[in-house]
């Protein structure tokens, strides 16, 4: 991983479940079909409560924020891989949350879709949607541009190797399954 991700953040709270990330009525879309995958992206996070900011503008397929900041238990609920897929299709590169539900975390890692980072600091109370940040994937640091503050990201452990390989298939080819 030798890159940096710069862009705006979209800030969410605790327990963002998979029905909010991609509501069940869109699960008939097939992630392996490129057109339908794009559509899944356009519905990313449309299940947020009705007074929330929209993640994707009307008529768009991609979000203006490639980074999500969230609280605890991000991605709880169903096993639908449509959830990290829709975020990936909408242009999300990484999430920084306090914690994840395990299936969402595994899906993101094993499909090589996005980096589910954790930060021991509760960032979602300190930051606002639309603010610019820079994430250094090498140094595992995260700079909040409005304040100039630098935060550390926790290591992803073994999961990082899997994402770096591009997912479980490549990982298994490289390291075997014993």
């Amino acid at each position, binding site marked *: 991983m030798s890159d940096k991700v710069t862009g705006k953040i979209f800030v969410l709270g605790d*327990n963002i*479940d998979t*029905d*909010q990330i991609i*509501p*069940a*009525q869109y*699960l*008939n*879309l*097939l*992630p*392996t079909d490129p057109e339908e995958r794009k559509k899944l992206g356009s519905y990313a996070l449309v*299940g947020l*409560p*009705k007074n929330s900011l929209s993640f994707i503008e009307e008529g768009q397929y991609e979000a203006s924020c490639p980074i999500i900041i969230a609280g*605890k*238990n991000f991605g*709880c*609920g*169903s*096993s*639908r*891989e*449509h959830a*990290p897929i829709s975020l990936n299709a909408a242009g999300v590169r990484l999430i920084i949350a306090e*914690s*994840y*539900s*395990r*299936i969402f975390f*595994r*899906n993101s890692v*094993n*499909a090589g879709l996005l980096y589910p980072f954790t930060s021991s600091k509760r960032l979602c109370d300190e930051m606002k949607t639309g603010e610019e940040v820079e994430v250094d994937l090498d140094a595992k640091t995260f700079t909040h541009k409005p304040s100039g503050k630098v935060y550390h990201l926790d290591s992803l452990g*073994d999961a990082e190797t899997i994402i770096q390989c591009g*997912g*479980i*298939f490549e990982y*298994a080819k490289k390291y075997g*399954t*014993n």
Partner: protein
Amino acid sequence: MGMTITEKILANKSKRTTVQPGENVWVDVDVLMTHDVCGPGTIGVFKEHFGSDAKIWDKEKVVIIPDHYIFTADEKSHRNVDILRDFANEQSLKYYYDVGTSNYKGVCHVALVEEGHTRPGEVMFGTDSHTCTAGAFGEFATGIGNTEAGFIMGAGKLWLKVPETMKFIFEGELPPYVMAKDLILKIIGDIGVDGATYRSMEFSGDGVYSLDMEERMTLCNMVIEAGGKNGVIAPDERTLDFVKKRSNKPFEVVLNDEDAKYHSVKAYRSSEIEPMVAKPHSPDNKALARELKDVKLSQAYIGSCTGGKMADFKAAARLLKGHKVSIKTIVVPATKEVEEGLKSETIDGTSLWDIFLEAGTEGIGKPGCQACLGGPLDTFGRLNQEEICISTTNRNFPGRMGSRQSQVYLASPLTVAASAITGRITDPREYME
């Protein structure tokens, strides 16, 4: 050092003598289940990586059960079932339960049990988070995504991090007004929706062992609502009798070692548990049914893998018999076998089916997931407006059962039935004493 059931199963299936929590191991898979929502994506991943004419690793170990979007006019949903059917044919799958045939079953987690796919000591993965239900049979079962399932289809194994085990014990006999749903809502309310993340939840105690297999399934079904990786109950005579009737495959019973180490052990006195409710919009938003008397309802829903089994309908019918519901009440059997059971099972000479109809429910829905997950707009029982619903299902996230404007309260079949009569959240004891 001793191991818990979960650790032992994972050690056996990764061909090790011992494993420790936190270790990553590759385990051999006994059953892989998928359905119409995640099956097409899984098949897509499998073909992309193993080749378009690849064969799955074992055609008797993959079970495909369409159940989610069945009774709808939605064309994409039909297309998805077509993909499953083509795949089942192409791979000569032994276990494909097709829609529109006499082989159709209904909700996967209940169908897996009825069709004999759950056995002690095995490892089951499913592309559905409630795959943890099968832990009631003393096996390791958990939900996974399409990519992982696509990998298993070709490789027959998957890496897992060995979880620590949290043990929950219910001491003493359960009162007649308390059901498994109350026990699990109590636990989730106490530990929170992420209270068991990455851990195994084991249930024990004579309160648990007095439950029939369907009620034990309800306990394990909702561990995912506490973030749990798997739920498990050590097999007893009842488990073995049940499994032997449904499956003729040999299996190995795995039990906890005496000196197994747990993350934590929490004991409850069964007699102190009261009928529980999870308020909108989170399964850990707990309250006692009797504290919510002022909540007016517009709908009651009895169904799903959590609350649509025979044990659930027997309890609800026992309470509803001789009463009329005052709000829209939806009854959806989980599977065809349950649907048939509603007709054959009687209370004082009246079938459960007739008890529900006489009580004034909106007919009886066709077996499947139906409105448990909202689904296409024409789904039976879907909450389409600002409905306030009490439900035997497992999730009450915003919009889970349809409209984001609706509110869902989760409760046991007894509490849902009592509330359907009054139109307000009602403690079932009001109709039982």
